[in-house]
């Protein structure tokens, strides 16, 4: 059964939830869609080993009480079916949703860079490990190394420790000066300042990065370059994340312009396409506080409540400052571009090694020659890695935006749009 709504929101993380709540008071009919089984996005992911902040629970409860907000969990966008109509799929069926206005809150994914051994079971993303633990992954008594860049490393370590893991090392690639400079600015955002105290860990090292994951059948240890020295640590899990990349694919497919790596938005969180808004990490990385305020602005703006939206501009500006400080401090060291060896797999779907990719001119050439990016993840992992390593522009998104059951694609109209 196809459905129609006044406002469709894609992504039920902080931005999407805040957008829905802000728009809900206008009384319009809202559909909130997310591919995860529960709302909350990555940062507020719930599960048997998650401890949600009260703000998240509060927001969730408020949304539940909005009779005009309908949530579709476990639902992905597969294709554009017609003007202002998306084809979506859940575990059971595919259907179309027609909307008048849309807010993209598609979040961000981790930048995962290839290094020797990164395909071993036991190696995950940094945010990936945190998400898996919240979902019930047992880590009690396990030895963990967390590496990469950004505050997510500390957050992931905190979740792991809370579940009884032993965190041997948190390896931050950024230099001490950059991280200290960022920490020095934190008092400007007191909430973040105190949060950083609770996350601080004595095993934290700056100027330290992963060199190789060691092991045969699964991870047994890790080799790190730690402040100029090579060290090896025996461990059970290695979590590596090199920052976040905005999920812009759906926005791009809808014709919204991209600026830098993120969806371009104006002061109203409006994209370059009329009636299409975007908020949260898909418009650039800035943390949950920025996502919340952006989401609220988008929600108000999308239902025509400019005054309420405008009232939030100042708050947004404050958190945008935080985002800028963050992104500058954790800029990636060029050394991380040379972690992969010739035999290191870059495309994990088709098992294409780095050696088969060097020397090609661009993504398309490399793909046709090596099958890189032809697999199930549609180049989401290797495409982002190769954009970072070689500066190759990933391909424009094409339907199906995610692997989809063919029966779902049959739900598209068979007549050409007039």
């Amino acid at each position, binding site marked *: 059964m196809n459905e129609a709504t006044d406002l469709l929101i894609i992504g039920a993380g902080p931005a999407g939830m805040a957008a829905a709540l802000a728009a809900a008071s206008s009384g319009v009919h809202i559909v909130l869609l997310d591919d995860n089984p529960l709302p909350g996005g990555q940062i507020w992911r719930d599960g048997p080993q998650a401890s949600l902040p009260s703000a998240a629970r509060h927001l969730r409860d408020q949304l539940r009480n909005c009779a005009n907000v309908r949530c579709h969990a476990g639902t992905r966008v597969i294709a554009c079916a017609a003007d202002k109509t998306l084809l979506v799929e859940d575990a059971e069926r595919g259907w179309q949703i027609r909307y008048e206005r849309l807010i993209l809150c598609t979040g961000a994914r981790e930048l995962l860079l290839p290094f020797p051994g990164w395909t071993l079971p036991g190696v995950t993303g940094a945010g990936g490990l945190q998400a898996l633990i919240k979902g019930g992954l047992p880590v009690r008594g396990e030895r963990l190394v967390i590496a990469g860049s950004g505050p997510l490393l500390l957050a992931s370590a905190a979740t792991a420790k809370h579940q009884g893991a032993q965190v041997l090392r948190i390896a931050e690639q950024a230099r001490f000066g950059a991280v200290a400079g960022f920490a020095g600015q934190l008092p400007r955002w007191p909430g973040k300042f105190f949060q950083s105290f609770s996350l601080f860990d004595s095993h934290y090292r700056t100027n330290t990065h992963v060199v190789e994951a060691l092991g045969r059948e699964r991870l047994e240890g890790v080799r790190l370059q730690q402040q100029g020295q090579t060290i090896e640590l025996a461990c059970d899990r290695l979590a590596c994340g090199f920052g976040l990349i905005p999920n812009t694919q759906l926005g791009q497919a809808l014709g919204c312009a991209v600026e830098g790596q993120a969806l371009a938005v104006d002061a109203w969180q409006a994209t370059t396409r009329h009636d299409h808004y975007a908020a949260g990490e898909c418009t650039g990385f800035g943390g949950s506080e920025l996502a919340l305020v952006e989401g609220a602005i988008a929600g108000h703006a999308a239902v025509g409540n400019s005054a309420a939206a405008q009232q939030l501009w100042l708050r947004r500006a404050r958190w945008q400052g935080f985002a800028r400080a963050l992104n500058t401090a954790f800029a990636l060291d060029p050394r991380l571009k040379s972690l992969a060896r010739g035999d290191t797999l870059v495309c994990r779907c088709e098992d294409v090694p780095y050696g088969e990719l060097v020397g090609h001119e661009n993504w398309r050439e490399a793909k046709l020659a090596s099958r890189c990016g*032809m697999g199930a993840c*549609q180049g989401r992992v290797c495409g982002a890695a190769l954009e970072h390593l070689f500066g190759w522009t990933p391909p424009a998104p094409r339907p*199906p935006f995610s692997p989809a*059951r063919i029966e779902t*694609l049959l739900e598209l*109209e*068979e*007549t*050409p749009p007039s």
Partner: protein
Amino acid sequence: MSKGHVADVIIIGAGIIGAACAQALARRNVNVLVLDAGWHGATAAGMGHLLVLDDNPAELALSQYSLQRWRELAPALPDDCAWRNNGTLWLAANAEEMAVAHSKYLNLLAHGEACELIGRAALHQREPELRPGLEGGLLIKGDGILYAPAAARWMLDAPKIRQQRAHVSEIDGTRVRLDDGRWLSADAVVLANGIHATELCPELPIEPKKGHLLITDRYPATVTHTLVELGYVTSAHNASGPSVACNIQPRPTGQLFIGASRQFGTVDPQVEGWMLAKMLKRAVDYMPGLAHLHGIRAWTGFRAASPDGLPLVGQHPQRKGLWLAVGHEGLGVTTAPATADLLVAQLFDETSPLAAQPYLPQRFLGEPAHA
């Protein structure tokens, strides 16, 4: 060597046609420069289906000879070319189509092609995923599949062949002008750039025919043969409006290609949802289980179609020194080796391995102005 003389022959286009021509020339000790704009035409977008088609005698002669050439090349093809001799199974949905299968069978048999008529029960046995109730089919045993971009790359990997990434903006006699203004010259120029040929030769009667394709995740051993509905012959080829036909091809990876669609009058490369749905519905009609498989990517490409469905192979009748190898529509991968042999025979003024007449450009462009 005169100024700007860069090779004996310049080939424009590094798709499967340009590559086959380059390989054939290099084997005759000819120095070849292959120029390619890097746009990726039908070679990259197509299914790589190697098949004998017999809509008319010229098409049959060309495809049959070419397939024989592919089978000769096969032992030398690297693994990544994914050559398989898996056969094409033409599907008859009803008695009328079975009659088409029968006459096709007689015709192909008469031309020495190994083929077999398949009845209802045998069809189900050979391809159990097909829906029950199909009338039967015709198996063409010599047909196969290929990963054409890899085959083109292999053909171009020869000492006598140089490749350059360049867009040609003009052809003048046996000289070509690049985007940067430089002129390169040779003894002959071969135009093998598919639908882009009309940019350099507006007089060519070539039209882009858009096609969609979808590839599934890996489902090994679901399908064995390339499955094509006989309606393909009776409807899709002759339709002027948008049309679809069931075409399911198993890749060596265990993935399935699902096609095919045809649209005229568009050069927009976007995957169109309505066309994708129409095409998939047709395939699911023949193989209901496809509905539960996951499609992981869809894309489009453009076939360079000539008015009579046959390629233009030979010297341009009004432009001496310019040789054409264009207009192969959906059969470029199949007929690339034959095209190369035809072209080389004409370039060297030798007897052609098959009659060149039906493919000569003069059938559209008029009689030669140069003698």
